[in-house]
């Protein structure tokens, strides 16, 4: 049924034990709560998926955003923006040539390109910081007074870089795997590195992480499970840039209303799956109990150096 998590039967054929693991995410499993702490029944008990960004100014219904709109037509992009408004999720307009300003009604949560800052009511704008060396130049041009500003950065491991981004005054960081860099690492490692780097105290004595939101974006984020694991590694929001297009069977000339309807069903299903995973792990609120909770995960046959970078224990370790 549309919007329902699919049901299957008999034993798993998933990686890493049966199918070939392609990504680090394939070697990470989540916890099931039992006995010493109870699981939560995701069909009958509340599991909260909402979260706040930018010091409480943005409330999202779930930690999943829709991105990758560059290839969409103006009308299609407008429908996606409206669908995201109805679902209460963030929409990332990165790469879109013409912003469907009319569609961005009050209460729509968009990440708009920074040069569109004056053309509509946007919660937040973003600027791409292609490399650590480009940071000062980009930060010099920030429209700080008006908006929350997010830095879109390549997936790096460099703690100092992430701290400098915070120091430059950005309110959020999107680690985007589609931005190439010669020192780029896997998204899992970069997300975790950023989260850990920002947990050090800032000038006010509080962790930088408290005032900077972290998002992860990649074409290879396939499912709610991938999102769930990336949240566990520190991301607050995970941006789906390709999987939603697969889900709605996107193609040129697609009827816009069908695109919006299927996207809403997809997001509903993703939210329900997130609740299933959270309930199974005994988590009643994704935002407060899952974000950066590496202890809820275990790795299976992941190379030790990578595992240590992620800060995840190995299966069988307790």
């Amino acid at each position, binding site marked *: 049924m549309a919007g329902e998590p699919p049901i299957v*039967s*008999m034993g798993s054929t998933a990686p890493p034990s049966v199918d070939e693991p392609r990504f680090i995410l394939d070697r990470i499993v989540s916890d099931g709560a039992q006995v010493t702490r109870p699981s939560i029944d995701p069909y009958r008990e509340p599991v909260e998926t909402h979260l706040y960004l930018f010091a409480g100014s943005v409330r999202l219904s779930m930690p999943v955003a829709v991105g990758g709109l560059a290839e969409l037509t103006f009308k299609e992009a407008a429908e996606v923006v409206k669908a995201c408004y109805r679902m209460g999720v963030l929409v990332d307009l990165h790469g879109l040539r013409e912003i469907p300003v009319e569609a961005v009604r009050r209460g729509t949560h968009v990440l708009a390109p920074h040069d569109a800052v004056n053309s509509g009511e946007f919660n937040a704008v973003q600027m791409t910081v292609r490399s650590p060396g480009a940071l000062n130049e980009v930060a010099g041009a920030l429209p700080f007074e008006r908006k929350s500003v997010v830095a879109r950065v390549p997936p790096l491991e460099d703690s100092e870089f992430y701290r400098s981004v915070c120091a430059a005054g950005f309110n959020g960081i999107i680690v985007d795997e589609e931005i190439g860099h010669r020192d780029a690492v896997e998204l899992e490692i970069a997300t975790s590195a950023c989260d850990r780097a920002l947990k050090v105290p800032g000038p006010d004595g509080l962790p930088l992480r408290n005032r900077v939101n972290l998002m992860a974006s990649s074409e290879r984020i396939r499912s709610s499970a991938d999102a769930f694991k990336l949240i566990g590694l520190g991301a607050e929001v995970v941006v789906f840039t390709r999987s939603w297009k697969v889900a709605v069977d996107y193609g040129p000339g697609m009827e816009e209303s069908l695109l919006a309807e299927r996207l809403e069903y997809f997001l509903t299903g993703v939210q329900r799956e997130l609740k299933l995973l959270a309930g199974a792990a005994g988590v009643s609120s994704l935002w407060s109990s899952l974000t950066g909770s590496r202890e809820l995960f275990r790795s299976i046959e992941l190379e030790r150096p990578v595992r240590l970078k992620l800060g995840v224990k190995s299966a069988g370790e307790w």
Partner: protein
Amino acid sequence: MKEAVSVSEGRAVVASYLRLPKREAIEFWNDDRITHIRALATTGKPQFVWDPCKEGSRRVLDRVKFRAELEDRGDQVDATEPGDGFDVSVEIGYGRIWMAAPLYLGDMSFGALSGVPNVALARAADETYTLCGIGEGGVHPDVGRCRRIFVQWASARFGLDLGALRLGMGTVIKIGQGAKPGIGGHLPGTKVVEVISRTRRIPVGVDAISPAPHHDIYSIEDLEQRIWALKEATGKPVFVKVAATNYVPYVAAGVARMGADGIIIDGHGAGTGAAPWVVRDNVGIPIELAVSSVDRMLRREGMREGFTVIAAGRVSSAEDTAKLMALGADCVSIATAALIAMGCVMVHKCHLGFCPAVLTNRIEDDPRKVLSLETATRWVVNLIKGWSAELKLILERIGVNSVRELVGRRDLLVADGVSEDSRRAMGLEGRGLD
């Protein structure tokens, strides 16, 4: 192989195996494993000593080997009967239950399975002096007439009363299962027909979704109360079934401390009649990485003696059994393998109710096809006999006389191409990847 069926009262009675379908997707229970299980089930004779199906598999347990096998290379024994003097019997639950082989036919409910397979499993357990867990769906009348059953007390309490609880040799408090740790049982509404409705005492056609937690077990102290309530009510051993998860050693220590007679640990990859896809594929850890830590934790706490550890989840052969026992289990649970023995071809469609092998199909008043109870029972009995014989051949090779002496003998194993982290979790030496 053509499907040989006889016709009785206008019904086709299935008493032979389906031809294996062509498979595009990768599968743990591949054609080699199914063919081996079918050979055991039809002949009751051992097929080999060392399981060749483990070659090329990505499962950690398949990269754990007996030292004896590595020394044995090129000397695969042909399928002869094992020598005398090798004992595969075990005593479980502080010695209160004797089993002729360390095989527990795991917890498949009436409703998930369509009746005949439930009865076949229970009868096979009686005939072979093993055990059969009946799952959550209440007691099928013909299963209730069998002696060697374990009655399951799960979060929805379907079809349970004092009479039903007292039917078995023991009770299982089901907390979790390997296919969906932290999530409750799920029988799709299409399979809830009149007879299932009566047995489970639920409305026809409505999904039977059991609560994820027991709503009267929110702590280890709550669990203790239930364990002792069930012990007093039945006078029989009480086992607790949990999934293999992050903290399973603590869970096992708690279960033992609270007075249970044993624990069934179900690993990632175990079968299910219906589960959310996202949970089945992403939650829980493999049994081989859980059972060893559980065994060591229980020893450290001085609670291992007499307490039974049953390992479940992808137990596919006698060699898996032996290896899991050497890692610290007293017994293993086989379920998917038993289904395959009864004709399962792993099409993964149990939840839809159209099982081609008539094992998990929707029960109909006037079915066109039914499974032969006699044949299905014989297949499972043969499977257990053949499996036990292969286990004896392994004992012969590794120089251990009894499976009871095999428990916890990690020194007999070696990990070949396993990461240091996993080796440490299993307590094994060997060549690593790191």
